[in-house]
């Protein structure tokens, strides 16, 4: 690897100060994503991402701009990341610097306008805690509250359990300030018109749409240095009161909060219920959470997580417990919901609506989860979203597969078949954890109020053991083949396979061209090429923004 010339390094150092830049191998090595940082949606991978030339901690928009300008001057790629949950935030070429935005952590809450203005290192949990002090809260994406709100909102999809009542990142993102890959500063939404932070769109074409769109552009449009997000009413106390012994903390919330695990006799009934929830607007939060552990072990896992003296070693015995087995059976097709009434009447109405939906669909409330201690644990878990690392609890790594569907009836109709496929791999091989086939963690809302849903089967594997990683990759090939057969599109575990190579490097333009010219709609990527040319003329932010060179495409078209 070529080292950055000393003179160039000194220029970066002059921008951020000596303390805030490093090229010491000990630091650089820790800014390489490892295989355990799975769930990057490009399948289980081996090896690390490339080593950056330097890691830089800018502390302000001006410093970010200074760094980006130098990157342009010297043709150095850069990638900004803040909380680094997924590999998306890591650089993908050796001629790169990694920006870690942890020094940027100011925030301001405008309670009257229900807006929070944030710098990147303000995590979801912190802003929620601050917002609750003034009777507000925010949508915390499914990645959990340890993740940067700005990263989730500017960089990726940003849907979560409260999206049913609060919408997703694309809907909650208001005014924003960006340092574009060219080094220019762009202010979007009402902020760009000098009218404050309150609105995501400003006059003219949607810059929010270009810079993040629905899915987020994973750091391909430079650095969002500040943004406003919408806050939503919080009908609870100024702080979530907690009790219990670590890790089995519980919320002691008033009676207007209810947590239920709703269960259904069939997948059709489940889909009907979700449709009715979308239509009736009664949920504060809805998410299929605990099934991520797996159909056969979820009740035992809930027991473990609620008893400070239990641990994974207790799993085999608990899985044999007849009561817990029975609960697994009863919660086979389930979803967690939280109601939050604004008034006593509102709470009653919501309760009635839930009961009526259960009546219509033949569903029931899980008796085990009605236990007050468990319900209070669920309230804390899902409102704060502070236990997302349980995603990794079984094996240290997982990747979600199968995927998203525009309509819950699509996934519901194939859920058992998908489960059987996974169960077969669990039973016939050892690469993936055997948890009972169905390990779907279902997002019931990928846009505000309803709409598309997720069905992400958690496939737990051991990134330390190559046989497990490789076997899991083979399993994903099998699920992709099945998805193809069913016409279900790209498996979630492979979404980002066209964004970063298996060795962790970005794709070159030629490699992207070769992939994308075969797309059914190559024009999208051609259009993106043109957008990139405009915003990122030196191509400094990597291949998560898929582009197809129009010249190559037209040459091929002419040849064809």
């Amino acid at each position: 690897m070529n080292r950055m010339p000393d003179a160039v390094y000194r220029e970066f150092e002059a921008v951020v100060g000596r303390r805030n830049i490093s090229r010491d191998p000990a630091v650089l090595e820790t800014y390489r994503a490892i295989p355990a940082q799975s769930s990057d949606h490009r399948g289980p991978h081996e090896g690390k991402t490339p080593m950056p030339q330097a890691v830089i901690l800018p502390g302000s928009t001006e410093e970010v701009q200074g760094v980006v300008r130098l990157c342009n001057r010297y043709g150095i790629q850069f990638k900004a990341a803040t909380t680094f949950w997924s590999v998306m935030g890591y650089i993908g070429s050796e001629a790169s610097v990694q920006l870690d935005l942890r020094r940027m952590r100011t925030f301001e809450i405008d309670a009257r306008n229900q807006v929070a203005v944030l710098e990147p290192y303000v995590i979801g949990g912190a802003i929620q805690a601050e917002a609750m002090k003034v009777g507000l809260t925010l949508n915390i994406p499914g990645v959990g509250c340890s993740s940067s709100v700005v990263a989730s909102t500017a960089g990726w999809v940003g849907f979560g359990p409260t999206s049913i009542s609060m919408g997703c990142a694309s809907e909650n993102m208001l005014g924003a300030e960006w340092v574009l890959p060219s080094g220019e500063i762009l202010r979007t939404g009402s902020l760009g018109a000098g009218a404050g932070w309150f609105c995501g769109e400003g006059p003219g074409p949607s810059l929010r749409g270009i810079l993040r769109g629905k899915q987020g552009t994973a750091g391909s449009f430079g650095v969002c240095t500040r943004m406003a997000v919408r806050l939503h009413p919080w009908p609870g106390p100024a702080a979530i009161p907690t009790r219990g012994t670590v890790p089995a903390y519980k919320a002691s919330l008033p009676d207007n909060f209810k947590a239920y695990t709703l269960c259904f006799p069939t997948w059709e009934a489940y889909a009907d219920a979700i449709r009715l929830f979308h239509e009736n607007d009664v949920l504060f939060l809805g998410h299929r959470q605990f099934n991520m552990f797996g159909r056969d072990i979820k009740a035992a896992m809930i027991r473990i997580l609620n008893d400070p003296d239990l641990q994974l070693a207790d799993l085999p015995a608990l899985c044999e417990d007849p009561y817990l087995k029975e609960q697994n059976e009863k919660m086979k097709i389930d979803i967690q919901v939280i109601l939050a009434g604004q008034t006593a009447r509102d709470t009653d109405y919501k309760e009635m609506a839930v009961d009526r939906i259960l009546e219509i669909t033949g569903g029931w409330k899980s008796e085990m989860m009605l236990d007050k201690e468990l319900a209070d644990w669920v309230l804390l878990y899902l409102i704060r979203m502070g236990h997302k690392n349980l995603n990794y609890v079984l094996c240290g790594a997982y990747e979600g597969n199968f995927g998203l569907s525009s309509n819950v009836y699509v996934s519901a109709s194939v859920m058992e078949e998908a489960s059987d496929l996974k169960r077969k791999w669990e039973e016939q091989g050892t690469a993936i954890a055997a948890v009972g086939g169905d390990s779907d963690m279902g997002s019931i809302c990928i846009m505000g109020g309803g709409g598309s849903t997720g069905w992400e089967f958690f496939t737990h594997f051991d990134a330390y053991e190559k046989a497990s990683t490789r076997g899991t990759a083979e399993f994903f090939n099998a699920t992709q083949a099945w998805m193809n057969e069913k016409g279900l599109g790209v498996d979630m575990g492979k979404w980002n396979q066209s964004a970063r190579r298996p060795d962790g490097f970005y794709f070159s333009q030629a490699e992207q061209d070769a992939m994308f010219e075969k797309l059914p709609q190559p024009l999208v990527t051609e259009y993106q090429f043109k957008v990139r040319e405009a915003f990122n003329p030196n191509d400094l932010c990597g291949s998560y923004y898929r582009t197809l060179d129009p010249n190559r495409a037209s040459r091929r078209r002419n040849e064809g």
Partner: protein
Amino acid sequence: MPLQDYRPMMERCSNCLNCRWVPFDKLKSLRFGENCPSVCYYGFGTYSARGRFQLGQSVLDGEVDESEAVGDIIHSCLACGACDVSCKVCRYNLEPLAHNLALKEEAVSRGWVKPAHRAIMEGLRTEQTMLPGRRKADRTAWQEGLGLKDVFQEKAEVLFFPGCKYAYEEDLREKTRGMVRLLKKAGVDLGVLGSAEACCGGRAADMGYADEARERVAANCRACGKAGVTTVVTPCADCLHAFKRQYAEAGATFEVLHVTEYLERLVATGALALPGRIPMTVTYHDPCKLGRQGEPYEAWNGVEKKIRNQIHTWDPKRPRYNGAYGVYDAPRRLLEAIDGVRLVEMERIREYSWCCGASGGCEAAEPEFSAWTASERVTEARATGAAAIATACPWCKGRLGTAVDENGDAMPVVDIVDLVLQAAGEVQA
């Protein structure tokens, strides 16, 4: 466990960043939400427990041989264990604190040592104390005239073990003597190790000097064994931790109690009265070694076992030190037993308390970092409106007592024992 045995953990840590924050369920603000002083101060993710796992991997793989900073980074861990608690909210198979210590041990074995540690370790080797410049011959001066039993000569119900600070430091010695007088007045049959009293070794272990620590543990275990000690009471949180965990691991079977636990028992049973009134609002700083690291030792000798193909667990079940059973309530109850004392809590308390900055060898080797860590705590304490910080460890008291908050203002710091002595009429305010 040597560093290479942590490789599976290094490779299974998924970078969730829990190790940088208090357990999220307990997060009350951004200002006081983080838990790892090292990553907060130095900035790079390298300094977090996750970064250290990856650094450990790079050390084993020889990828950082040209690093100038590697030793500094490794030794910048306070060994406070806040990362350990937060990590284990969700993970059942990672041991960040134990790994950080193994990394330090590896660094020491490779000669990546901090110059400031040399003098301390020299003092430990020659004078058996962590306080450089102090002499072994002076250690027992605090015992003079107290009529304490020498446990080698006479059996005593309780061995009082003051630790280096309470034995040597002039301003503390009087308090040590006061404590002894108070305990005796309450009818406790006290003894000391006499001239065999020496450092517990706990702080050496936190600095990565495992051999030296083991030597101290072995020597003190031998002494206690010879004297037939059954209960040890100490006012030092570091000593408590060493006795409770490292000594137990080395085979010791005596009961170990912090003096606040013992005093609280005496108050509860009526053996000790606290008639004095101290009108004061205090906030309590949980010492790491008494709180989250003060859990009882459980022996374990097992191996990793995979169940259900790939779920890794331990056979037999491995003790899970996560702060659940640390010593938090006794010091608080003792404070509340003093008439006039009002306790107000900081945001980061109990198992997710913020470290004072005195541990892990950082106070000597990284004084600015250590002072900043303490300053953060004083700022947090100030925000409660308390008039003073109460604590239960001489190292915390010393560190916080010499720190100032973010505005440059100091805050009075008292050991709970100081207040108890006052309330009991043993000393004047």
